[in-house]
């Protein structure tokens, strides 16, 4: 590949890493800090993507909207919608033990996928929503990619700072206490169900934002994008490999896993065409293998959860 091609590929990769890092941060709030096993990331991703698409596209026939609203409003709506969907799910499912929650959320994500597929008035069905506006989409290809990468990077930075603030604040301390020992946290007056719901909604809102950024980058969103393999399980590997409970770990894990994931695609594309198509399926196997290896050799991740209280008093001492 020549240099320009490589650069374009790197930009493309950077944007995807940014989008996935938002999903991993959202999952880190839910799993890393609140101990909630959400296996339905793809569902919240889809709600965010479609909401922003409906809000920001020009009016179209045969489906609701579009409302041709500003981009930022679309992203905000994506977060609110994902949070609103998370609310009743959390209200019902957070009473379950973590493994039941996992099953329930897989089910919910599947329901969302089917609704998206079979409600053309809402989502334009299998054809999906196209012509989603993309900021700086009129620039040259490379420049436009760079501009989008910058936007994603800024959004990710803001999200990281907002999440990191919570983890070091009493809210994060309380969530970690609830995760460590529910009985004692309740005896210390903490309203477990309400707090878990907060964490679940907060995480889901970030996942919705990730979905919105994805839709605007692609300029379109179809039901195929809601693939639990890539939108849910890949994110889990990213978080676990990076280090659940650690926001920087979540971002690092995203970068590492995404690079491996997309390199594997380049590798399979080199094969003769009759194998290339089949070889794509081996990438799914790769996801499972990576998860096994990570859990076996690096269960705490590349950047394990820090002792937050100690870190804080060190800062005070400095």
């Amino acid at each position, binding site marked *: 590949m020549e240099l320009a091609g490589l650069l374009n590929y790197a930009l493309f990769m950077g944007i995807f890493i940014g989008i996935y890092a938002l999903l991993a941060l959202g999952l880190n709030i839910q799993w890393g800090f609140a101990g909630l096993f959400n296996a339905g990331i793809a569902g919240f991703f889809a709600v965010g993507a479609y909401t922003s698409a409906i809000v920001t596209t020009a009016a179209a026939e045969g489906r609701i909207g579009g409302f041709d609203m500003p981009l930022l409003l679309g992203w905000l709506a994506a977060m609110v919608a994902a949070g609103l969907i998370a609310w009743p799910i959390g209200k019902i499912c957070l009473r379950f033990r973590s493994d039941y929650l996992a099953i329930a959320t897989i089910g919910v994500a599947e329901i969302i996928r089917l609704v998206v597929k079979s409600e053309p008035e809402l989502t334009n069905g299998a054809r999906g929503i196209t012509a989603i506006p993309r900021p700086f989409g009129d620039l040259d290809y490379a420049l436009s990619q760079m501009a989008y990468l910058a936007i994603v990077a800024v959004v990710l930075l803001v999200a990281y700072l*907002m999440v990191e*603030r*919570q983890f070091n*604040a*009493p*809210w994060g*301390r*309380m969530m*970690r*206490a609830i*995760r*460590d*020992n529910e*009985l*004692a*946290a*309740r*005896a*210390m*007056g*903490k*309203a*477990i169900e309400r707090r878990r719901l*907060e964490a679940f909604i*907060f995480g889901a809102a970030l996942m919705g934002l990730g979905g919105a950024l994805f839709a605007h980058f692609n300029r379109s969103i179809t039901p195929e994008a809601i693939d639990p393999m890539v939108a849910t399980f890949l994110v889990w590997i990213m978080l676990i490999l990076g280090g659940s409970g650690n926001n920087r770990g979540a971002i690092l894990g995203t970068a590492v896993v995404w690079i491996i994931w997309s390199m594997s695609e380049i590798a399979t594309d080199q094969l003769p065409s009759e194998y290339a198509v089949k070889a794509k399926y081996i990438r799914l196997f790769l996801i499972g293998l990576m998860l096994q290896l990570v859990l076996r050799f690096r269960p705490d991740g590349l950047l394990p*959860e820090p*002792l*937050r*209280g*100690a870190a804080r*008093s060190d800062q005070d001492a400095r």
Partner: protein
Amino acid sequence: MLELDQLVMDFSGFKAVNGCSLKVEKGTITGLIGPNGAGKTTLFNLIAGAFPPSSGTIRFLGEDVTDLESDALFHRGLVRTFQIPHEFHQLTVLENLMMVPPAQPGESLFANWLSWGKVRKAEAEVERKAWDTLAFLELTHVANQRAGNLSGGQKKLLELGRTMMTDAKLVLLDEPAAGVNRTLLRKLEEKIQILNRERGYTFILIEHDMEMIEKLCDPVICMAEGAVLIQGDFHTVRSDARVLEAYLGETQGDHA
């Protein structure tokens, strides 16, 4: 302050607490003794709202609290410790104490984003209180350790420390002396008395250390088989024939 009426806890056929009625007066330190399996800890769990009783009522500060859960009871001033330490093992020792005070501004997501200054100020206050508590419990040197790495005795102290981080009215202590060294134990007794006299805390204390019971507790209640056997001052209870038979047995006089 606390009234239990005919409490029963039926664990699918096994009645750990079986028709237990008692009253705890404000300002007292009540000792709860009895043989292993008498239902003392189950009774604590019922009072603290860990699970609801099968039947019977619990009244706290004049109100029926039978169906309240432990977080609601905490906010009414009822705090408990656990017989088997329930520390937050991945939090530091300091954080274990700092998470206790109720209604911290930083427990709100929005306050942390929008009024960080106010949160920091409240945090500084909570942190100061936590350091004071650690100093009293002689745990300052492990303040920044993972609580899960503490020894059994230190975890018991941490349990007690948590009750000192809030304005409690009634404190349930489940075997505070188990695994704590003698010197520190005397200090603990002193602190319990100070909290009782000066801050008006009422205590109920499960303990097998008769010295501690004798020093601190009046009245003393002896439980056996899920119900109250006898209630009275230490010497009355201790010389009661039924108590000797059910609990203190022949060791009485030998080791006491």
